[in-house]
């Protein structure tokens, strides 16, 4: 179970202070599909990065399995990301000089599970409709295919938590639907899925939602 307990994050740029997270508290249980939405600059990405062990809050806690991530050392936090977290970003961030297959396989490799990678990759590629594109380089794929490949990479090895930052932001409706269906299916299989989106149509698909404004949750999450 992933929890944010009064997490606060303040950025300072010169004399300006931006409260990206202001005492945020929420809980994401296995099987939850939590949708985060709000205007630009409201702290949605900051929430995901804090939850993913990438960005320590200035105050408050981020807990996984009851333990504060940021009390762990860097090595254990790396292991948390490696074994428990799958990130999906709006801009995909596929590594351009290796094939789609290797982009996905890299995640298995980092987890030390490369031996069983081939079957897992084939299954994920089949689900996301990129089986024919595994041997291609990211630059040879369409935008929709790149995002599906990025989702496949995030789901490789069945992480406990999937954090998706506007995964459908650049996609046409068909590709967006494929991604959303896939993430919902992951939640149904027991993963904790947190997705940031601007698309009102997807908000209702979650088991819960958080509306962020200036780093604060202004509506209670339905499923939390």
């Amino acid at each position: 179970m992933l929890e944010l307990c009064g997490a606060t994050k303040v950025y300072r740029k010169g004399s300006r202070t931006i409260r990206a997270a202001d005492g945020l508290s929420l809980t994401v249980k296995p099987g939850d599909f939590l949708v985060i939405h709000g205007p630009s600059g409201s702290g949605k990405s900051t929430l995901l990065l804090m939850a993913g062990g990438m960005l320590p809050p200035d105050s408050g806690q981020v807990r996984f399995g009851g333990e504060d991530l940021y009390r762990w050392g860097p090595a254990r936090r790396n292991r948390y990301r490696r074994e428990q977290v799958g990130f999906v970003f709006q801009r995909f961030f596929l590594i351009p000089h290796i094939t789609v297959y290797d982009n996905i396989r890299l995640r298995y490799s980092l987890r030390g599970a490369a031996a069983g990678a081939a079957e897992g990759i084939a299954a994920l590629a089949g689900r996301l409709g990129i089986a024919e594109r595994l041997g291609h380089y990211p630059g040879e794929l369409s935008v929709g295919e790149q995002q599906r490949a990025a989702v496949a990479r995030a789901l490789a090895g069945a992480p406990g938590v999937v954090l998706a930052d506007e995964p459908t932001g650049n996609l046409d409706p068909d590709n967006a639907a494929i991604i959303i269906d896939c993430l919902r299916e992951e939640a149904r299989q027991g993963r904790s899925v947190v997705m940031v989106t601007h698309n009102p149509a997807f908000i209702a698909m979650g088991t819960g939602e958080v509306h962020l404004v200036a780093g604060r949750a202004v509506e209670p999450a339905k499923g939390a």
Partner: protein
Amino acid sequence: MFLRLILNQMRHKWGVTLLLVLAMTALVTLYVYLVNSAGFSNRSMELIMKNMGHNLIILPEAADPGDFHLCTERQIPFPDEVAARMADRQELASKYYASVLQTREKIGDAQVVLTGIAPVHRGDETAEKAHLVADVPAGHARLGAGAARLLRAAPGGEVTVRGKVFRIEKVLPVLGELDDSRVYIPLGECQELLGMPGKINAILSFLCLHGTTQEGMDRYQQEKMGRLFPGYQAISKLRIAQGRSLARVTTSRYLYCLLALVTCITVIVITVTGLQEVAERRQETGILLAMGTGYPYIVGLYVLKMLVLAGVAALVGFVGGSLLAKALLAPVLAVNTQAMGVVWAQFPGVLGLAVLVAVAATALPMLKLVRTDPNLVLTEE
């Protein structure tokens, strides 16, 4: 997967990879060329100096060097086994010993310097590394140019010394010094003729300069002589020793100045390329961190790539530099040394240099890499 990432990255940015390899190859090639050409030039110069004859005279401490130069009756005889003992002491900077027993001698109307001579041979002598003094065959005499002129003698003729007939082996070229007036005969036969068995009055030798200055080597030799052979003095012929020393110093200075310049250029090329690469691969760095790798893994990707490229550059540059030195230098050496070619014993040092330059030049890009904030990269639009 780690290696595949490195190899694919190299292939993906093949232009940059090629530039890095070329920069390091150029450095290694120049380094090997300079080291080899300096080494062979020095060796050639050593041989030239050696061919000029001995540059060290060893006499008893009590002897007046003037008596040796003027070949007077006051020269102090000492046992001829001293030269062999000196030759056994590798600590001495002097090498190639020859025992000498000399006296003024009247042969007919001619005044010459009768010189019994015997080189002490080394175990490692080769055609190139031959002794300065060739043995005078038994019953033969070798004449200085002046002595030959006075005696009206020629190779194949005969000369009689104290009633003993010697066949003339050869006549030496004009040197413009006392040696022109010498009649060389085998040392044992000279000792017998002079009634001085087992005695000599000088040892000629060659002071080798092992990479240091002539003054430094003089001090070293005096210190070793004083400790190992007290009672003997070594007098160096400065002009020959200094010529050798200055040749080495000149070569070394030009070598190191040029090398420093090229090293700086190579380091700058690698550093600038590395900084650019770190900037271009920010997203890759961000996503790798998000996938749970640490900075050591990512730094390892860069450093190992540079080490691979350094290894390739070292190998190509080493062979290229060696062949270049052979092609450009061998035809112009005044005295040929041992065969020039690829000296594989130098390769570990060359590889070490390439690795050192690569690692040093990668330091700044790696500093920039570990200061990359992945959160900024991953959230930028």
